[in-house]
């Protein structure tokens, strides 16, 4: 397929827990591997914003790191522009990172406080040995700053990071990725540390840039409510697996997996009349440890709809339902009917 920019195939990442010497001798003390990513596959299309959603511990950040090649996968493959990039030499890796750039979560920690904004933006050019005269470099920096609407650019170039607000810093972080003309950006919770009042402003800016430059985004977040506006498609992760994947509006208006349903139910809405009500959540407890993934469907321990089959039979695979909407729940239809009955009654 030509319209796919990034393709992830059956990717796994297991972390070996630390073991002391005596533990490794005594077999009984053998610790289990932490299955952070347990076989996920997805495609990101050219010019698409792809959202990866889940609770902490679901493996969404690890997925981002694997895509950025900051971690080596245990097994599986990653294709970028049809090319296998799962294992790359040092030189190839540098080339890959020029095309795939990352925006980090914390705009206060991702910039050297002793660098002026100009230096922050020049650093990638130095690291990637971009041959250019000083004037050409300045031009590139000005262009990047204009793209993220930090105007006038000359004024911002001379500022220090501490003189900028969180939103402005996240703009600089975006400009820093754009300066190398990337094809894809990985954004790990880029607005979670920014005030609600300006969050939308940053998302608008990122979307404008994406449209203008025809970029693709992997947008990692736990916030479903911004994902609806910002993303084209969403994959919902639970304990290292994708449990549902589809177009953003389908996922939110017609969730098929009970985990997605619980995530949606839990989002607070600014409407009156809810103070007296204790909201009944269609989910039990908290996410289990990825070192101890439940047998059968990994969600059955928290699922209010689980049956013996969910517990004992092998884990359901993603199945297609409707257009581009996949879910991994064997009882999806029964649950759907039950929910509709409840809503009607």
């Amino acid at each position: 397929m030509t319209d796919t920019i990034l393709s992830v195939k059956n990717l796994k990442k297991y972390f070996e827990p630390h073991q002391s010497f005596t533990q490794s001798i005594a077999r009984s003390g053998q610790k289990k591997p932490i299955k952070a990513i347990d076989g996920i596959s997805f495609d990101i299309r050219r010019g698409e914003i792809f959202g990866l959603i889940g609770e902490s511990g679901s493996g969404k950040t690890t997925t981002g790191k694997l895509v950025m090649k900051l971690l080596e996968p245990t097994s599986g493959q990653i294709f970028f522009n049809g090319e296998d990039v799962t294992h790359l030499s040092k030189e190839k890796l540098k080339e890959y990172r020029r095309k795939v750039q990352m925006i980090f979560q914390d705009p206060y920690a991702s910039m050297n406080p002793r660098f002026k904004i100009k230096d922050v933006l020049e650093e990638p050019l130095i690291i990637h040995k971009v041959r250019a005269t000083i004037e050409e470099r300045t031009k590139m920096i000005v262009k990047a700053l204009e793209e993220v609407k930090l105007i006038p650019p000359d004024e911002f170039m001379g500022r220090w990071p501490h003189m900028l607000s969180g939103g402005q810093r996240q703009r600089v972080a975006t400009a820093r990725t754009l300066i190398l003309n990337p094809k894809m950006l990985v954004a790990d919770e880029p607005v979670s540390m920014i005030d609600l009042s300006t969050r939308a402003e940053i998302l608008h800016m990122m979307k404008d840039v994406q449209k203008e430059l025809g970029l693709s985004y992997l947008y990692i977040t736990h916030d479903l409510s911004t994902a609806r506006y910002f993303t084209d498609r969403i994959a919902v992760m639970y304990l290292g697996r994708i449990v549902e994947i589809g177009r953003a509006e389908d996922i939110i208006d017609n969730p098929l997996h009970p985990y997605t349903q619980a995530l949606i139910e839990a989002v607070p809405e600014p409407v009156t009349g809810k103070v007296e009500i204790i909201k009944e959540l269609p989910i039990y407890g908290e996410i289990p440890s990825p070192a101890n993934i439940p047998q059968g469907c990994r969600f059955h321990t928290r699922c209010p709809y689980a049956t013996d089959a969910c517990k004992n039979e092998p884990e359901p695979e993603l199945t297609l339902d409707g257009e581009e909407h996949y879910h991994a729940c064997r009882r999806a239809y029964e649950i759907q009917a039950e929910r509709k009955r409840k809503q009607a009654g």
Partner: protein
Amino acid sequence: MNSLLKVENLQMHYVTSKGAVRAIDDISFELMRGETIGLVGESGCGKTSLGTSILRMPTPPGRYISGKILVDGVDVIPLPEREVRRNIRWQKISMVFQGAMNCLTPVYTIGRQMMETINEHSDLPRPDAENLIKEYLGYVGLAPEIVQRYPHELSGGMKQRVVIAMALFLRPEIVILDEPTTALDVIVQAQIINLLKKLKQQFGLSFIFITHDLALEAEISDRLCVMYAGKIVEIGSNAQIYGAQGPGHPYTERLLGATPRLFKKVEQLQFIPGTPPDLIAPPKGCRFSPRCNKAFDRCFQEEPPLVEIEPGHMSACWLHQRG
């Protein structure tokens, strides 16, 4: 309902070498018994400063400039620290600090840290204190075995439950909750909100709930105080702010517009351009005027007073008097 806490014309400034930062600038409100008041606003508007001021422990270099904080009719500001420790802090008013769950000591067990809190504020003998800890762990939905665990062995939600239990030990009447769910996932957040509602009923508590998230306030607060740049710009009931009529002050309106809605289809998310003002030298007139799209001449000249626009609904905006 009778008044439990009354804040009158409170001013609290941070005295710095550059000048006084007017973090709380003439704030008055009342908390009734059994009520939850929400304090909302952007970061830097003075929500947390107000919380710590009520607890009589403003963060240095904070100073009370004027005003009163009346707890059961007694002003706590002039009281000696000993007196506050023995009778007010944690006995009458306690607080769940922002990020408190990450401030548990990593080298002590949960039980030992909880014991420390009890010993600091009461003379309970050890066996009784141990029972008290187990009792309160039960109230927040945790198993008693947790006392032997270390913080790193617990999830974020469990740590937040421990911190809430620690705020309730000495049977306070008022609990100030400062962003108690900010670092948590949506599902855990909803679970904590449910827990707080349950505890409020069980112990007859009154809450001051601080957050920047208006959607979250809708779930828990009976009344809302909207703060901007050290001042209260609007006070209204849950129904008045979120109901059909909507908020009175343009700032609340914009803040509500910027709150993402999951089910409401909107083409463009709204936002408030610009940043809150410098509190050393706040702008002349209405402090929100430089960012307000409804501002007119008068807004840049004179500061609007907080006036009642309907029973129990106050707003500080010149638009209300324009007719």
